[in-house]
């Protein structure tokens, strides 16, 4: 248990220690080596790197340097990432063996380890993290502490105004004041649908009930999205603090964080954070000396995308199959065990503390007319800088893909950007200049979704992409209602027919009618949006569908049945590289002579295409 004064003291003292993390121009001898411990970097051995740093520091008895784990820096494609503070020197793709050199050269001698410095898209060496174009158009609100603090140390969180918002709320604000602040900020749900957050809170508050609940939806199941995971891994306390604030505002004293078990690191950090918050008296009874009590428990999702749907999530917390409930009644009226329940997503919560501290006015000054604040995107696919980006609402897709993302690799051309995951759509080149907000994206047949943003280059077949999303939906449909259970399967079968060149033109009409029908008749959001990837590709890339059906052709050569990979006799120099690379020994030919692919053996893995230095294979 800590008093407010004690918390202040811890925060202030820690802040002095950590000033070098945020202030590049400090002239001190002290150095911090920050090692990214997000999932991406962790899976490429960042814990070993941290361990090595610590061993070397100990061995060399260095006193002016500390190595610390942090959350995600965002630019995952360059991982594992090591940052040296206060200079903000940015080392990318570090291996455990590089630690010795970094300590020797950078820490002890004050020189840069040039070979580890990051290169930008043009090949230019970038010395400091903030010099990277990747960061220039970003604005970090939800991700503010990610990559700055050690997520497993509550004191570091306190050093950067941690739990100050809660203090303000408990000391100075009434329940209605808090809700008004959130309402005025214009914050909308970041889980995808964009319902005004303040309104949702007020719905729960007005319910009269003995028991109410606050739930955090951390079941980020959108394939290719990892915003929420990164927030939980990098700044778990900010979500916990916001949930306590929400509990106070709506009159709930119990909260659940529903997080995917596939996110072991996030789960671990949440567990650590909850334990620390409890020991400091920030969770439990009489929080900060007031009469307000609040408790928090973690519940694990066991691998079902549909549990991201709020009512399915509630069913899952109750220990059942994650099958959605019919709405109305909405969870605000009848949620967990029939009690009024507030459900918000991780990123939504991550904005709350900043809104309370900086004010609704500040927050609503960012963004567009209808969508305020920032949005975090997980940028992936055929783009140079893969990673996590946070931009003000209203930023255009072009800025994200080309300025932040660094454009399309391998000299290829942009074809489409997919937002909203399996519920969203594919946005073609012509709409690249759309300023992103909830309305503009749905106007172009996509949706904000939770924030996955996948870029596709011109080597991608859009029918195949639609098929991919339908495969996802079919395997993730809960099976409750007929349209989604059987309908999505039939849509997938029609798409398979098209990709195999077996479809007739009327199949396209059937596909469209079925898609529209499923949208209308399904029970939950998953079914109602499942046809979107098909409808949007049919709208923007209709010619590709027709090509598959009429000409029996796949221009991207992705649909195996309509494609043969062949070697151009004119261009082949017989270098033998393709033959060596082929995993199924389908290529034959004497060195120096024209090679040939045995079509009966070829699995169309396209390895040879990438290997051929003469572009003779296609």
């Amino acid at each position, binding site marked *: 248990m800590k008093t407010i004064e004690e918390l202040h003291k811890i925060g202030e003292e820690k802040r002095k220690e950590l000033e070098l993390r945020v202030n590049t121009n400090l002239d001190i001898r002290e150095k911090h080596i920050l090692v990214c411990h997000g999932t991406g970097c962790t899976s490429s051995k960042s814990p070993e790197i941290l361990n090595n740093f610590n061993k070397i520091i100990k061995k060399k008895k260095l006193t002016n340097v500390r190595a610390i784990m942090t959350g995600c820096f965002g630019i995952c494609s360059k991982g594992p990432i090591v940052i040296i503070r206060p200079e903000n020197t940015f080392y990318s793709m570090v291996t455990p063996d590089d630690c010795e050199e970094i300590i020797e050269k950078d820490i002890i001698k004050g020189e840069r380890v040039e070979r580890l410095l990051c290169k930008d898209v043009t090949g230019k060496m970038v010395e400091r993290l903030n010099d990277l174009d990747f960061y220039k158009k970003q604005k970090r609100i939800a991700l503010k502490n990610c990559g700055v603090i050690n997520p497993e140390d509550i004191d570091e969180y306190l050093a950067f105004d941690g739990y100050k918002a809660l203090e303000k709320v408990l000391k100075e604000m009434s329940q209605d004041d808090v809700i008004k602040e959130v309402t005025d900020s214009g914050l909308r749900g970041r889980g995808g649908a964009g319902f005004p957050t303040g309104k949702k809170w007020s719905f729960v508050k007005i319910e009269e009930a003995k028991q109410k609940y606050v739930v955090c939806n951390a079941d980020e199941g959108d394939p290719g999205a990892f915003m929420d995971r990164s927030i939980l891994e990098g700044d778990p306390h900010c979500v916990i603090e916001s949930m306590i604030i929400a509990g106070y505002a709506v009159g709930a004293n119990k909260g659940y964080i529903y997080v995917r078990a596939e996110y072991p690191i996030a789960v671990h950090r949440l567990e650590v954070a909850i334990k620390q918050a409890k020991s400091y008296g920030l969770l439990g009874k009489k929080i900060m000396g007031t009469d307000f009590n609040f408790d928090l428990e973690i519940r694990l999702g066991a691998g079902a995308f549909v549990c991201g749907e709020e009512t399915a999530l509630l069913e899952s917390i109750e220990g059942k199959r994650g099958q959605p409930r019919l709405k109305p009644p909405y969870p605000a009226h009848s949620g967990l065990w029939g009690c009024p329940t507030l459900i918000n997503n991780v990123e939504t919560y991550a904005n709350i503390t900043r809104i309370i501290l900086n004010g609704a006015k500040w927050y609503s000054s960012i963004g567009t007319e209808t969508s305020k604040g920032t949005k975090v995107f997980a940028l992936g696919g055929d783009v140079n800088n893969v990673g996590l980006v946070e931009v003000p609402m209203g930023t255009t897709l072009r800025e994200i893909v080309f300025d932040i993302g660094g454009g399309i690799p391998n000299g290829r051309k942009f074809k489409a950007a997919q937002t909203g995951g399996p519920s969203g759509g594919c946005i073609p080149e012509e709409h690249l200049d759309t300023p992103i907000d909830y309305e503009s994206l749905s106007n172009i047949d996509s949706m904000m979704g939770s924030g996955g943003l996948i870029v596709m280059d011109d080597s991608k077949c859009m029918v195949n992409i639609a098929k991919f999303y339908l495969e996802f939906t079919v395997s993730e*449909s809960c099976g409750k209602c*007929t*349209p989604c259970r059987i309908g999505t*399967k039939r849509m997938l*079968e029609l798409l398979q027919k098209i990709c195999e060149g077996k479809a007739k033109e009327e199949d396209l009409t*059937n596909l469209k009618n079925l898609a529209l029908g499923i949208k209308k*008749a399904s029970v939950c959001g998953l079914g109602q949006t499942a046809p979107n990837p098909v409808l949007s590709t049919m709208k923007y890339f209709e010619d590709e569908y027709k090509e598959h059906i009429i000409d029996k052709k796949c221009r991207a050569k992705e649909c195996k049945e309509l494609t043969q990979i062949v070697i151009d006799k004119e261009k082949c120099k017989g270098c033998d590289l393709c033959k060596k690379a082929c995993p199924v020994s389908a290529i034959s030919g004497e060195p120096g002579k024209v090679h040939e692919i045995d079509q009966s053996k070829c699995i169309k893995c396209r390895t040879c295409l990438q290997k051929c230095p003469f572009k003779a294979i296609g």
Partner: protein
Amino acid sequence: MEEKKMIHLVIDDVNVEVEEGTTILSAARKANIDIPTLCFLKDINENGDCRMCVVEVEGRRGLATSCIQKVEEGMVVHTHSKDVVEARKMVLDLTVSNHHRDCLTCIRSGNCELQALAIKYNVQNVKYDGKKTKNVVDDKSPSIVRDFKKCILCRRCVSTCKKVQEIGAIDCTGRGFDSCISTAGDISLNDSNCVFCGQCIESCPTGALHEKDDTEKLWEKLYDKDIIKIAQTAPAVRAGLGEEFGEELGYNSEGKMVTALKRLGFDKVFDTNTGADFTIMEEANEFIDRVQGNKTLPMITSCCPAWVRFAEKNFPDELSHLSSCKSPHQMFGAILKSYYAKKLNVDPSKIFVVSIMPCIAKKYEITRPEMEEDGLRDVDCVITTRELARMIKQKDLDFNSLEESNFDDDIKFSGTTLIKVKDGEIDETYENADEIEEELQELLEEAKENTK
């Protein structure tokens, strides 16, 4: 009592007034407007899964689920708008696409809710064809056949099993297109904790669940001239059979039923009521024995095989409470093959006993190991009322105009001959009911004395 608030709404241009909390579906039905349903089973299965009952509510996005959603003041509902009918057609097209469409040979043909809706909504061709969920038939149990190919996943059986019967033998398993109604570990119902009560069959809208058909086996025997075919009918059968031939509910067709059974080829037709008399007496004896001997009490009946199986599966440590007596038709079967065979002076193996029962658990009961004596089954075959009706129809008997006959009275209770059975064997024979009552009274008095 507080009066309920009344809600006013418009359904298909009709003004409707109903109590607050009423669903759109029941409000519509109250106004004589029908909305089709498939998965809906009032108070038992109300989950809005099938999407047949969708309606349009003005000013609301998407379609509303009328079987669940409650009426609201000023609501304007359209039950048959273009969108609604298209959605229902799509639901039917999809359901049919995943259904084993062998209607011609299906036991529920003509009495199938899916078939009726498909006809109503003019589903004339199979619009979407593709993979089907599961191609399995579980016919291992003696009572119930589960045909996965015809299941439409309405979950009415699951709710009935779990909520009404509180057994929970089946549930929805798997996910998405592969979801199916199954037992724990996908084992046969026969090996599960199913008690064969048959209520799931009652709730099934299609032919996915039906009783095991034993009529073919029975026809074989009925044509066999070398054996004596004896039928015994449970009390309920005479009250239910008429319904199958257009008679009023509850019409007592005892006389016609006996004639029909004889015409089918049975040599003797008895009333299982006689068996019940034996059972009652035997139970009374057992009860007295338990009281006198300070044995396990209370004593609980063992006449219902579903109940016995339930107790065995769920309370294996409490089985001593169950009476050791056989159920009426089993006891009667045993008597027919012992006492009666002797009386007729025939080889008991030449007697074929058929019980006509209202419950499919009886089909399971006759297979239980203890239900035989010297290698002879007490009862050889059980058919249900419905199976009997089908046999009568197959024989082209005009049931309604059959003359009436009486049960055979070679063994009969109430006034003529009574027998006292002890430990499965006939102990004493009484001439009339008064004698029995006397004996029972005596025994009870004795019991009271002993317990004092």
